[in-house]
């Protein structure tokens, strides 16, 4: 269970920020592998294709006083699942758009995801572009520079990653966390008199607990 540490972290002193993150990209570029590396520090050469979407969480400490919890939606890559994607990127605070450095079409697909996010997602969404499978350098077809220039033009964070070799995976997610407007969010939450990790009073909960005990 990836979330096992979260509760522990949320009790730590300091602020906890919670962000919804969505992974998008062509099928088989390694979206699930990046998440698995980030959340469980594991890698499978054999990885089942994601159907629909998978949900995981991971909490990282940015510094002594700041903890960020990512709620990660890992989506299916096939084109036709695209119609389900808005459900996952709606209200997302950040997105990782993944391509495969050995598949030229995957960068084009990534660009179209970036365009869709800019058009339809939250205007303040933080987007990172990840060129995955950097360990397969002998099969590389997409130059680092090409992707980097595109990312700079489009205002995206950019990393070349290898889920397999664990290269730049934590860096990717940490930079996203650092790029989130934490100060502003903290101010907003203070203004609402509410911490971000507490989403109001759940009126149903005590009722349900009573129901269970009787």
């Amino acid at each position, binding site marked *: *269970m*990836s*979330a096992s540490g979260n509760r522990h972290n949320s009790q730590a002193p300091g602020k906890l920020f*919670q962000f*919804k993150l969505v992974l998008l990209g062509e*099928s*088989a570029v390694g979206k699930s592998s990046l998440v698995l590396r980030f959340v469980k520090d594991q890698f*499978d*050469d*054999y*990885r*089942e*294709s*994601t*159907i*629909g*979407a*998978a*949900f*995981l*969480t991971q909490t990282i400490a940015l510094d002594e006083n700041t903890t960020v919890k990512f*709620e990660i939606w890992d989506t*299916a*890559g*096939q*084109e*036709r*699942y695209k*119609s*389900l994607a808005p*459900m996952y990127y709606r*209200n997302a605070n950040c997105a990782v758009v993944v391509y495969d450095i050995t598949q030229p079409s995957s960068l084009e697909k990534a660009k179209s995801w970036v365009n869709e996010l800019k058009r339809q997602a939250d205007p303040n969404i933080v987007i990172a572009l990840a060129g995955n499978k950097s360990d397969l350098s002998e099969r590389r077809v997409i130059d680092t520079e090409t992707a980097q220039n595109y990312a700079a033009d489009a205002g995206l964070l950019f990393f070349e990653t290898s889920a397999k070799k664990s290269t730049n995976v934590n860096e990717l997610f940490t930079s996203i966390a650092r790029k989130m407007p934490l100060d502003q969010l903290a101010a907003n939450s203070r203004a609402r008199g509410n911490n971000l990790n507490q*989403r109001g009073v*759940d009126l*149903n*909960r005590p*009722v*349900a*607990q009573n*129901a*269970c005990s009787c």
Partner: protein
Amino acid sequence: MPTEASTSRDSYYSSLFDEYITASPRESTWSHSTVNSVKRRPSLNLHLRDTSISSLKRQPSFDCPTPALSSLKNAPNYSSPLNSVFHYTNGVYSPPPPPGPYVFTHYSSYNNSETKNSNNGIEERTNGLTNLSPIHSISRQQIPSNVHPGSVKVQHDPYANDRDQYGFKRSYQWISNKEYIDFEASYSHILQRRKLKWEAVLNENGGLIPSKCSKMKRYVRKGIPPSLRGRVWFHYSGAEAKMKSHSDLYQQLVLKAQDPRLENENFEVIERDLHRTFPENIKFKSTIVSDDNNSQTLSTDNVPIIQSLRRVLTAFSLYSPNIGYCQSLNYIVGILLLFMEEEKAFWMLVTIVHDYLPENMYDVTMEGSNVDQAVLMSLIMRKMPEIWNKMNGGVNYDIEKSDGNMPTITLVTSHCEGNKILFRVALAIFRLNEEKIMAVDDPMEIFQVVQDPCCLNISSRV
């Protein structure tokens, strides 16, 4: 939530939902069978509080006014009405495998057949095929004999400790090895008794699977013996009738799919999923191949079941061009291939997709999947309002999630009875995990609860 379904689907589902709401237990085909069942064992309680959702029915059910088989068995020369429809001849169906560990037929045939080397390129595949007519021999022909004979031997031991009888890796996260062994020791005699009962029923019926009736429904729900599963699914689903009436079609589609001149956008997507289908299963696992430079790569080129999977999926993409290929069909075919030959698996897939599941489930719109999500949410709202309220913190539930955790056999078995079973299992998963769901702080975490393999841990409830 996506609700823009076409009018016809709307009315279909709303009528189905109305039927569900007004269903009373006495009308339930489900309770009919449980009343008749010989004995009850602790099981998933699918009678959710007051009514079951058994009226969620779009397929012909097992209940039919046929006389009980016990009375038929005394009738001289009884034979199934199907005998006059289908001409069963020797060799059309293999006889039930001998007692003992179940051996997958396609593997045993690989070992016994002459094989030749192949580079697995498209040209070789095409050449290999053109001079073959019986489709069943295609897979044999394509298996190079010089590759990893050792790994094939291992696959014959279905009771190897770390694998279940279907070749899936056992997970020791929730249950210890000893618990597995203890369970299997206690369960094996039940399986054996069940198998004998099935054999008796088949014998009574001249070796054929009886027509649908309440007794067979009960038998199916208790569990089809693994050795008969493929045959029974194939028969009751209606796939058998389809295959009979289109005897050469699969072969033609396979040949067409292997024509190198054919350009089909689905093939590339299929290729990407082949090695990602049950990658941990011993039958599907990639093998390590050394190339000229002595560097080792993982490859599925020499994995027979993967070749079958490719042929079934590409043939299906030609058979149903509106669907082509949709990710997740690979898992359905993968399961089917563990239980039946590829041509039968193809017709099972056709039957499941076109007859059982709502239309548009897998086409580019995936509208059927959206509709089913809406239906599931409606059912949850109705049956489990507390959970629905909890989820209503803005989360859109996706039925695919619970599909991922349904026991895989349930998914396919459900196709003996219809789509309603999927909803029942989905609701059961929510009911079983009600306490955990109600305990999460954040509605989003509900997804983690129902995706977790231990969400099916029934013992925590019983």
